[in-house]
């Protein structure tokens, strides 16, 4: 091989290839382990079913079943962010990949970005399966009011969510094993807080003033506003349950996305420097 072939001087080209390279195992991996499809498609449907029955039993409007199915679909992304983004760098360090990643000339954002987009693509196929099955089984009626806005909100929600995952990835790396517990700790409260199975408006309706603050607090998790906005656009008959107008939610999500990605970048740079100084983060030496 000749030298000019091997060394890429354009960092944009290099980082694009690195990004694709890192995304690849996530996308391909999904189709190699068919059991995961079962766990990630059918199991979420079970908890979804439970909520659908509860709403039906209480005589809630039919669109509430749609709320729940959309929430159950988005759970896949939250789990992916928590366990395959946030915990990822720590895990990469343990198996010895991280030092090879850090030694490569690629940008660290290509690494995180590849991880994130690979995860999104993989999870999207599963989420789509959950959504389609749910809609068919429970005969949900979707009214797509504004497809462009809907797509925009979905994408920005994912970027913000995975941006948060990137940030967590660096933080987890710093705290090692203890971070694992954070993931466990976050899982259930976020299921509640982000309103996967009910509109966050409920906080305010049930708890009054303090409830509003809870809703604002959980809006830091991009899933919350994303879900709320998508529900408004898919089930307009329940607009009274909206927390904030969808377009405002989109703007907030854009800000969250930018802030998370920016912070993730800073955090990883900081951690890399710390690792090189203290010699304990990129090494398997513990």
């Amino acid at each position, binding site marked *: 091989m000749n030298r000019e072939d091997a060394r890429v001087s354009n960092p944009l080209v290099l980082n694009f290839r690195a990004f694709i390279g890192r995304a690849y195992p996530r996308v391909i991996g999904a189709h190699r382990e068919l059991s995961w499809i079962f766990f990630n498609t059918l199991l979420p449907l079970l908890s979804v079913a439970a909520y659908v029955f509860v709403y039906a039993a209480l005589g809630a409007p039919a669109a509430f079943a749609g709320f729940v199915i959309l929430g159950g679909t988005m759970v896949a992304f939250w789990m992916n962010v928590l366990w395959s983004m946030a915990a990822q760098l720590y895990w990469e360090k343990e198996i010895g990949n991280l030092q090879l990643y850090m030694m490569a*000339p690629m940008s660290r954002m290509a690494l995180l970005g590849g991880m994130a987009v690979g995860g999104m693509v993989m999870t999207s196929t599963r989420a789509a399966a959950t959504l389609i099955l749910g809609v068919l089984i429970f005969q949900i009626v979707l009214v797509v009011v504004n497809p462009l806005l809907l797509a925009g909100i979905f994408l920005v929600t994912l970027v913000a969510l995975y941006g948060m995952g990137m940030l967590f990835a660096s933080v987890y790396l710093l705290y090692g094993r203890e971070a694992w517990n954070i993931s466990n700790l976050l899982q259930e409260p976020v299921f509640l807080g982000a309103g996967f199975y009910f509109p966050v408006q409920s906080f305010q309706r049930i708890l009054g003033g303090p409830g509003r603050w809870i809703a604002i607090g959980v809006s830091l998790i991009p899933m919350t506003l994303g879900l709320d906005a998508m529900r408004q656009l898919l089930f307009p008959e329940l607009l009274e349950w909206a927390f904030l107008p969808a377009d405002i939610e989109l703007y907030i999500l854009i800000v969250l996305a930018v802030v998370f990605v920016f912070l993730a970048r800073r955090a990883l740079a900081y951690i890399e420097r710390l690792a090189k100084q203290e*010699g304990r983060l990129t090494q398997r030496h513990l």
Partner: protein
Amino acid sequence: MKDAIRTKELTRVFGGKKRRLRPRDAPEKRVIALDRVDTQVAEGELFGLLGPNGAGKTTLIKILATLLLPTSGSATVAGYDVAKDPYPIRQRINMVSGGETSGYGLLTTRENIWMFSQFYGIPSKVAKAEIDRLLKEFELWERRDAKVRTLSTGERQKMNMVRGFVTDPDIIFLDEPTLGLDVSAARAIRQFIRGWIQENHAKTVLLTTHYMMEADELCDRIAIIDNGRILACDTPERLKGMVKREVTVKLETDRLKDPKAFDVIEGVQNYVVKEEAQTNRTSLTFILEDDAPIGDIMSEVLNQGSKVQSMEKIDPTLEEVFISLVGKGLD
């Protein structure tokens, strides 16, 4: 000739200082892993680092691979400072460690190597062709589509080697690349390294090892390192020449009339005689102060009307060099 690697007073200390955000389990003890190391590796050299566990070999490699910062002193790789200018270094280096478990078990051998090649921006087509060529060279072709988690230790290490070499680095760091491998896998890897450096004159290899024989056989120069210090650095031959040691000579002659006659020769410290009845020969093992008495021994054999059938001088090995410098062997 240009320097591929150069270190000046390179020092690395672990622990001791108060750490920001230090996890509870972080070690408190201060360890000087490298202690004012000065080395110079020329372009085209196959340079070995030989040292016991904890000597600082991996620490040195990690600093050179831009994964760790020096505590003090400096290091340059391919002319760039590891602390100030890591990016151009990263484009030109790669590293393979023994017992490495890198990659993803779900991917195939080929996919894994391809993924790592992409982190260097190598065009996919170029990378794939090169991966195939290297897999064949390592006799791993049959396992190209096997999932990585099904590879044996030897196969896995060969895959790691392909991963390291596929980016065509100018300088490659090999940290105990044959660790835990069987004889044939280790041989394949050594052969590859030797071939690579012979074919590519401007390429440089920095290799660490526990195996004396490996260092001796492969390296142009060897640094013996212990406790973070380089104790000696030279060609294997010259290192061996450093150890003052008796010369051992094995001699086989036609049956001698008077095998005790060698007592009087000056410089003969000791010798052992064995009569081989079957072949009607005598075999002698001499321990000599130096080479000088060899001539006298030969004349004595001839004087007795006998002939020398074979003579073998047993050289000191790196083992002895190591023991004399470090004060212990390499298990």
